[in-house]
């Protein structure tokens, strides 16, 4: 119900720069995901938005309001904590009703909204239990209900589904998505699970070491990662460093040791510059020899079983490529293999400045 903006927000803890000059704009009613490895500063960003942490510099806006110095209890930005933070001395009912009581609602209204919130997370009938009588996943859902019950302006979700089993996680995230759209709550969702991020978000921000690397729709960050970090963090990818030696038919020619291939330039770079090429495992084909394809020959190094399919690592001229294989055509370990990839699927980026 409100737009959230961060402008050049920085937060340090001693020497650690937890959040580094982050500028973000989260649209009204949007489900926005912060995706990044552990310790990259996701929770800290949420805490700054919630008012639990004061940034060292930068500003936070809700709509036009500068809320940077507003206290946590004056903002209507409610957080679902990574460790649930359920009050152990209160029953589930009282946990969920806590925020509603502060809103001075009538008794009937409170119990109605507690019931509704518990229904949303499928915990009807748990009202009289204490948090320690619930499983980790159930506790996580109570934490979610506690936040949803007060219908906040901004919903901050810190890995709210991390403790659920795979099936419940998928169900809950769809439910969450539905509720979020129904109530149009501006939501910021933190996860390090890229599948979860891609499947429910309107937009995703990929973070690393306190910095935002890329913001875009799930498709954009997947298809057009702007740097190797994003490419390797979203989906799997082999990243290969080399020199761009020229452009042929709109495609970059890359030289990497013994390897030569073509790829699509995502950003203009002068000839002779150092570049990095990104190969997605699913883009490789086998045994196909056609004009214009990049062809590689190598030795299968490792075979990894992933359920529906396999990944193999192939050594090509001292470089390692990760490729996806269907179960019925899994090659032997140590065997020679030919693989090809459409140059259009190979993304070529300038090498980021080492920082």
């Amino acid at each position, binding site marked *: 119900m409100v737009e959230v903006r961060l402008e050049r927000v920085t937060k340090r803890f001693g020497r650690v720069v937890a959040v580094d000059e982050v500028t973000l704009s989260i649209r009204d009613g949007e489900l926005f995901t912060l995706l990044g490895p552990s310790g990259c500063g996701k929770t800290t960003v949420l805490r700054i938005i919630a008012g639990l942490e*004061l940034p060292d510099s930068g500003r936070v806006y809700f709509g036009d309001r500068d809320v940077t110095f507003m206290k946590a*209890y004056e903002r*209507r930005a*409610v957080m679902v*904590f990574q*460790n649930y933070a359920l009050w152990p001395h209160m029953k589930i009912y009282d946990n969920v009703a*806590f925020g509603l009581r*502060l809103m001075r609602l009538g008794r009937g209204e409170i119990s109605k909204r507690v019931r509704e919130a518990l229904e949303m997370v499928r915990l009807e009938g748990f009202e009289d239990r204490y948090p320690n009588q619930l499983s980790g996943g159930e506790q996580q859902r109570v934490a979610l209900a*506690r936040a949803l019950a007060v219908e906040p302006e901004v919903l901050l979700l810190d890995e709210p589904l991390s403790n659920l089993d795979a099936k419940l996680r998928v169900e809950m995230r769809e439910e969450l998505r539905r509720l979020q759209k129904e109530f149009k709550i501006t939501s910021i969702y933190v996860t390090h699970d890229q599948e979860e991020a891609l499947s429910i978000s309107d937009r995703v921000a990929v973070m690393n070491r306190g910095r935002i690397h890329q913001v875009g729709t799930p498709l954009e960050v997947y298809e057009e990662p702007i740097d190797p970090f994003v490419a390797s963090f979203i989906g799997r990818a082999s990243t290969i460093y080399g020199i761009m030696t020229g452009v042929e038919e709109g495609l970059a020619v890359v030289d990497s040791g013994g390897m030569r291939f073509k790829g699509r330039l995502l950003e203009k770079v002068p000839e002779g510059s150092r570049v990095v090429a990104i190969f997605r495992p699913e883009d490789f084909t086998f045994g196909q020899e056609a004009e214009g394809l990049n062809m590689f020959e190598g030795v299968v190094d490792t075979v990894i079983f992933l359920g529906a399919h396999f990944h193999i690592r192939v050594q090509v001229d001292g470089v390692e490529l990760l490729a996806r294989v269907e179960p019925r055509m899994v090659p032997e370990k140590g065997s020679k293999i030919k693989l090809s990839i459409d140059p259009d699927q190979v993304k070529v980026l300038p090498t980021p400045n080492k920082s």
Partner: protein
Amino acid sequence: MMVWVRGRFRRLLFELDPTSIAFISIPLIIFLFFLIYPLSEMLVIAFTKDGNPSLSWFMDIFTSRFYIDPIGQGAILEYSPDYNLLYIQGRDHGVILNSLIVAASVSGIAGLFGLLVAFILARYEFPGKSLFRVLSMTPLLLSPFVNVFVVKKLFEPFGLLNWLLHEVLRALPFRVYFDGLAAVILVQSLTFYPIVVLNTYSALVNMDPTMEEQGENLGAKGLGLFLRVTLPLSLPGLLAGSLLVFIFSLEDLGAPIVFHGHPLARKLISFQVYSRFISETGVRSPEIAALSLILLACAIAVFIAIKNYVMLRPYATVSRGGRWKPRLRRLGPAGLAAVYLILPLLVFSSLPQLGVVALAFSERWAGLLPEGLTTWNLIQIFVNPRVSRFLINSLTYALISLVIIISLSLMASYTASRMRFRGASLIDALITSPIAIPGIAIAISYFYFFSNHFRGTPVDPINVLQFNPAPILVLGYSLRRMPFAARAIFAGLQQVHVNLEEAAMNLGAGRLRTIARVTAPLISLNILSGALTSFVYVVGEVSLSIIIGVLNMEYAPMTAYMRDVWLSAVGSLQIAAALGLLLMLMQLSVILITTVGLKQRYAFMGV
């Protein structure tokens, strides 16, 4: 520059709200106003003569052989062949040196013996260990004055111990008589060594066992290992315990008062301050302020000298992180023999408490043991209004102090553990500081403070006829006993995850509501155990009670009655013992409730 200042200001405002401002300022103001200010004012008084700044009070003290006599007089021991008696009394080096010598000897003896007992408890397993443990903690049971009296009786030339060692066992070829400074050292060592045991024990069990194992790996064994690894690592606990003992010894009035029949027992700073104060009337001589200040300075100097090694806590720390499996070993025959040789010493150190119980149930103590079983003394406490009045006063003061102690320590501990600005921990340091400040110094400074600033009011101690010590006592008790509750509450707060409070604020609860609905309920057990513990120690408080409390006996607390038996020869010894018994029972129940019922630690401390 302006922008920077404004930025700092807004950051500060972000942390502050009416509740947090109150939580910071109330304890701060009370401690500045009622602890720091009176002590500073006493400093000024001591350095003023006839309205001018002057060193003369101190010059008088430091140039007098009564106060400082480096050469010393008298013999530490004397043997009298006529009576076949070894008379141990100590040498007189003047009041100030005597006090320091006594305090140093007591902390030395208590330190060595305490370390030994703690090491046995922490590292060895043997039959009778729980008895060993209980006996080593018994001296901590409070029974002011009476416990000293029991020691005095036991050590008389024809007392129980001489009878046992000289006549029955014939272990001693002569009778031994402790008196004067030696008696004070003996009593205080017996009473205070468990403080060293507690602190050292916790250092030993919290020590990472791999440290010792590492040492063993490198070839250290036995005494070498102990000296090179174990001792250095347990040193902070040992020093903290010994430091507390040093301070308690300096400020102790119990032993000197009971032994004051011997002139040397009177030549201690604490007794001098006390007897001067009591014998004068009206405006007291600034020399008393100067003496109290010397007492305070000694305590603080020792504290500062070893502060780098010591985190002063009223009780052993709870270990951080995972508890390790302690290195417990079975004892071999030689070790067992050594332990069972120490056992009689422990029994011996528990005799005062046993003696108090016996005395409370007896009619007289003329011979070897108390005689004439009776419950009359105990009944008197409750039915005789001239005795019960003191008990009621004490309990009332303790209850009121409790409210102050809990609120202030909650505020200060919350500030120290939750607020994020520099100086938050200063408040914690401030409210734990009374543990290093002799009660006598606080009491004397209150006398000056209230007589200067509240002249003519009921809390003016010079205004003898109308004086009501209750408010001063409650205030002083609260400040002196604050460290116990503050530590317990602080420990509780550290165990409550901050997220629980943040979640409440995040849902719109202000700080006060968050504390009331989330924080306080979650640490209620810590609050309760802190409250019970400080209650007992308020009831057992001595210094303020017998300095300020006795100025109007109508309102005096029960420790004042217990003192009177020795100083004014009013009241009954046996009833004093009954009061002591009651106090020990209260303390025992509190220990049981907190450790068994609430599963909390009980914070021990001396008188």
